């Protein structure tokens, strides 16, 4: 079939393409294109009506120009004309243009839809197919609205041609993906399932894809597909290679359909019906058996198709995770592939084995391949394959082989590609901790990590080693000795200085007896690194020095001299200067006893899950909200930790502002950590290992029991009636609390109402304080919280604590309100207070400042992630923008504080314009989580701001914009 003689050789088009190909330079090409564009424009605008052929030719030229990478902004109308033509060849080009250059002009879409409608009704299968292809290619919402009702009918109608059925099935699949809410379920669904029995394998192939997508969303409705898929699969795998005629591909019967059927079965658990289950097991066994048979062809297509089915079958076996025999056979098969000469197969075998390793039935079988995998790590030439080998070693690691695997990974790390070093570091750190029997091994491993790949050792890793050393006294002396030795190296990584500084500051005394590591030698060793380090490390070292003053009184004078030197006391960095001044003062005036108390050894850290694990999970699972969530918390802790080194156990400092972020080492808020006795804190800290403020978490999650048993006193009840009439016009009051949680909510001559609140994820707790400002008693004092009907289903409130009906003059009473956010909301609940004062009934209502933004969790992200997400949230209804005049002086720091107070993470260096602010966070409600990005652009000259919010929910964007725009 020679190409050029095919039907319509459009000479004009061929000549144009040749011209372009003959252009010697980019400029010449652009010139030729512009000439052609001008020509086409004039033809389209000209008075003379163009015949169909010319129109087709010009539209084709436009398409070609577009495919070269140029923008095309006209020709759509001509294309619509073509697709409405009765000539097949014109229609085809018209549809192609529309499919490739999708345009959202609504008038145009109306015309296109009209053309499609006519073709769908034409009963001409070729025309119907073109129309269906166009819908599947464009897949826009407008098309979904217009055609989702018709397509199922075409699909299941008895007289529809097979090829049309195929197109209709996949067309419906596409629409279901883009606008799932518009695709109606109904009577047709059961008939779609029966397409699995269709005689035409092409129809079955297309239908299986559709059913898989639908079954993922409504498994119950498509349950009957399981037995049909099994019997279809069984017929395929047992057929002789010639039975299926043209659906046999290089001697493999219907490989695409087999893969799709196996995929469909992965939407379901193993079949309950014994017969179906038996038949499926037979199929899977047959597929595994076939892998052992000699190949029917030497062609790679044969083995690829055969193995595609095999890998999909193994995926199903792993998904079911119920047949030990099949799991072990799968593992053995993959083991053979590990040494296959095809790189592709080795890659896939490593990948697939990773999932097998997590099944209890096959874990041991996977482990037998350890030598092969280690060898792959050493010899594979392709980094993506080596990456898979690392993943698999990690997955197969357990107590029995941890030492070997960790050693091999460390070995590999020395020469590993930069792109995967950080991940390997995290993996080694996790394995070393998880499987450490002997913690000296763990400490050695981490120090090795720092030595080999210090730049890739994140803070989570070195924080963790310190936590562990502090918590295990059997390893403290060894650690002190080891870090001391490691620090002898002339060039050691700054992370080692940090770990060394912290550990010697705590446990240097354990090795001070050895004259080779006397206090003065320890100090001199650390101080010799001081000048090479960054500010945070120096700050940490200063804290080490003050700890030395306590540990080693004999070198106090030397340390004081250092602290007193100009380079410390007058350091340009305010943090360093302050430390030097305070530590010097502390060492001079405090008695030995006070020093011993203040600089006491750090108490053990509460046991919590390794934060490194979270970091790894995050690296592995991009884009998922829960992961981002966790990352953000980790990052928070980084910020605190890195600026605040080994803290002073200052019991003198008793400010008890609760720490607002996780603090792995308690570095950020030592006073708080110390004030909580480890034993009592332990329980609540376990509630949530990543809690922002763990003691608060425990109290924030009222147990069901608490809800039931707490006394429901009539006067302190949450009622859901219509709001009381006289609401103190409180939007301003609410606005005042948008960016802060504590303060005075309301005040008049009689009383003051104060608030303290804390929020975490979708839960909150508000303490309400009522102060009687008079000298007389309030009588019959009662309160109620009222939710308007519109709000009732969106947040749940529970008010408790008994309030005595008599509130004495000058006294204060307190109530606690528990809040649960179910879904996003607009209104604020109302607090109603009634009491008698001097015989007169007082009744007042104020809005409670419970606003949607309180349920924010900040999310840190890079500039690249930010803009990628920003683009993803580009639909018009997702964005809300407001331009408004500044109500307050435009101070950068104040603005920053407000954005942080609003609840999002303030992202530095994200916006190319440094005066703009960007933020990101996730709103947590019980039902959904809504990611939110915001951007605030101040214009100081005009004293205006432009605020843009993008979230995945229109109502959320709206509400957040309203709330935040009132703040500046």
């Amino acid at each position, binding site marked *: *079939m020679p190409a050029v003689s095919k039907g319509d050789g459009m000479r004009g088009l061929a000549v144009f393409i040749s011209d372009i190909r003959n252009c010697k330079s980019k400029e010449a090409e652009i010139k030729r294109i512009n000439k052609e564009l001008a020509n086409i424009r004039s033809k389209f605008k000209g008075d003379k009506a163009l015949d169909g052929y010319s129109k087709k030719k010009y539209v084709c030229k436009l398409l070609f120009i577009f495919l070269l990478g140029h923008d095309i902004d006209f020709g759509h109308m001509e294309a619509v004309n073509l697709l409405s033509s009765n000539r097949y*060849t014109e229609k085809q080009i018209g549809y192609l243009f529309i499919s490739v250059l999708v345009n959202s002009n609504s008038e145009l879409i109306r015309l296109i839809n009209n053309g499609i409608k006519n073709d769908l009704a034409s009963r001409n299968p070729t025309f119907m*197919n073109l129309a269906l292809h166009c819908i599947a290619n464009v897949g826009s919402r407008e098309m979904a609205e217009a055609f989702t009702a018709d397509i199922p009918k075409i699909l299941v109608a008895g007289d529809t041609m097979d090829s049309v059925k195929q197109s209709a099935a*996949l067309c419906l699949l596409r629409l279901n993906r883009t606008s799932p809410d518009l695709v109606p379920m109904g009577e047709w669904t059961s008939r779609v399932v029966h397409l699995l029995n269709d005689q035409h394998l092409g129809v079955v192939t297309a239908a299986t894809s559709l059913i898989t997508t639908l079954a993922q969303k409504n498994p119950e409705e498509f349950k009957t597909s399981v037995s049909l898929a099994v019997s279809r699969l069984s017929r395929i795998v047992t057929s002789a290679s010639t039975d299926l005629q043209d659906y046999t*591909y290089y001697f493999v019967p219907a490989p695409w359909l087999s893969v799709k059927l196996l995929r469909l079965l992965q939407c379901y658990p193993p079949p309950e019906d014994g017969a179906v289950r038996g038949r499926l097991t037979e199929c899977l066994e047959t597929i595994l058996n076939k892998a052992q048979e000699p190949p029917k062809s030497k062609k790679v297509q044969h083995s690829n198709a055969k193995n595609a089915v095999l890998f999909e079958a193994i995926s199903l076996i792993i998904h079911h995770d119920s047949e030990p025999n099949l799991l072990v056979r799968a593992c053995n098969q993959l083991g053979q592939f590990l040494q296959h000469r095809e790189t*592709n197969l080795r890659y896939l075998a490593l990948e697939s084995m990773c999932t097998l390793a997590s099944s209890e039935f096959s874990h041991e079988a996977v482990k037998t391949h350890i030598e092969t995998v280690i060898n792959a790590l050493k010899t594979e030439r392709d980094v993506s394959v080596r990456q898979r080998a690392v993943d698999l070693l990690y997955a197969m690691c357990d107590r029995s082989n941890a030492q070997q695997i960790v050693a091999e990974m460390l070995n590999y790390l020395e020469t590993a590609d930069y792109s995967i070093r950080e991940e390997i570091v995290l993996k080694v750190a996790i394995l070393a901790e998880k499987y450490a029997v002997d913690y000296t091994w763990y400490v050695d491993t981490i120090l090795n990590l720092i030595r080999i790949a210090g730049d890739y050792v994140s803070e989570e890793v070195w924080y963790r080693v310190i936590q562990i050393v502090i918590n295990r006294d059997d390893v403290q002396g060894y650690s002190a000795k080891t870090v001391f030795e490691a620090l002898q190296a002339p060039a050691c990584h700054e992370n080692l200085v940090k770990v060394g500084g912290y550990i010697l500051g705590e446990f240097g005394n354990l090795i001070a007896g050895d004259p080779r590591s006397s206090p003065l030698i320890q100090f001199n060793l650390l101080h010799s690194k001081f000048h090479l380090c960054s500010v945070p490390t120096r700050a940490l070292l200063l804290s080490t020095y003050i700890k030395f003053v306590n540990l080693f009184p004999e070198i106090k004078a030397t340390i004081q001299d250092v602290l007193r030197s100009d380079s410390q006391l007058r350091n340009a960095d305010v943090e360093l200067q302050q430390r030097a001044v305070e530590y010097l003062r502390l060492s001079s005036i405090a008695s030995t006893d006070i020093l011993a108390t203040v600089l006491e050894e750090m108490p053990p850290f509460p046991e919590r899950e390794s934060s490194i694990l979270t970091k790894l999970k995050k690296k592995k699972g991009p884009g998922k909200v829960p992961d981002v969530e966790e990352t953000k918390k980790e990052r928070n802790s980084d910020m605190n930790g890195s600026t605040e080194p080994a803290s002073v156990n200052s019991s003198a400092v008793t400010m008890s502002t609760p720490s607002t972020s996780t603090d792995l080492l308690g570095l950020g808020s030592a006073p708080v950590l110390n004030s909580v006795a480890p034993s009592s804190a332990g329980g609540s800290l376990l509630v949530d290992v990543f809690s922002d403020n763990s003691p608060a978490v425990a109290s924030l999650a009222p147990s069901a029991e608490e809800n039931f048993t707490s006394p429901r006193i009539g006067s302190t009840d949450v009622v859901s009636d219509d709001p009381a009439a006289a609401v103190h016009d409180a939007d301003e009051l609410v606005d005042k609390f948008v960016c802060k949680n504590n303060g005075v909510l309301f005040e008049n001559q009689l009383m003051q109402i104060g608030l303290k609140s804390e929020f975490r994820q979708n839960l909150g707790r508000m303490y309400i304080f009522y102060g009687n400002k008079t000298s007389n008693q309030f009588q019959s004092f009662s309160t109620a919280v009222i939710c308007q009907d519109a709000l009732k289903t969106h947040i749940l409130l529970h008010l408790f604590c008994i309030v005595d009906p008599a509130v004495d003059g000058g006294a204060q009473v307190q109530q606690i309100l528990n809040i649960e956010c179910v879904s996003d909301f607009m209104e604020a609940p109302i607090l109603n207070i009634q009491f008698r004062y001097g015989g007169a009934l007082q009744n007042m209502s104020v809005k409670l400042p419970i606003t949607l933004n309180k349920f924010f969790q900040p999310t840190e992200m890079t500039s690249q992630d930010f803009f990628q997400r920003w683009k993803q949230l*580009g639909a018009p209804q997702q964005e809300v923008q407001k331009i408004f005049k500044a109500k307050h002086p435009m101070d950068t720091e104040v603005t920053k504080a407000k954005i942080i107070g609003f609840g999002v993470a303030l992202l530095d260096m994200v916006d190319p314009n440094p005066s703009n602010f960007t933020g990101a966070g996730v709103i947590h409600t019980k039902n959904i989580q809504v990611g939110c990005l915001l951007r605030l652009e101040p214009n100081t000259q005009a004293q205006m701001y432009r605020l843009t919010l993008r979230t995945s929910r229109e109502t959320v964007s709206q509400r957040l914009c309203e709330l935040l725009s009132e703040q500046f």
Partner: protein
Amino acid sequence: MMQFMLLFSRQGKLRLQKWYVPLSDKEKKKITRELVQTVLARKPKMCSFLEWRDLKIVYKRYASLYFCCAIEDQDNELITLEIIHRYVELLDKYFGSVCELDIIFNFEKAYFILDEFLLGGEAQETSKKNVLKAIEQADLLQEETETPRSVLEEIGLT
């Protein structure tokens, strides 16, 4: 589901692009640039699969042309490799020993064949005979309806 398919030359020139997910033109260009660069940088013996963003890239080179598909995490790499091969076979059969030039000059045909084979990112018809039958029928319709052209048009002057 396949998210997109790109055909490009060894020189990095894009010859065909098919997108099964809605993306902006700018995003498409960015993805294309990034992937063409990544794939061209890979050595011949390397494996045909790579992780890219949260997708899996499956590619194969035929003579001067690279065929590159992006599939989702649960999708099957090997069967995608054979999707590419079957598409090449279809082009080969239709054009008669296909070469890059055929695809450049008859890009619309390459699209029509692809639409018969894959739709919405899934295989629609895997039988070579059935796909080619559909295309041939269309070509026949084309010849029947073709109108005679002027001499000037025949020699490509308009």
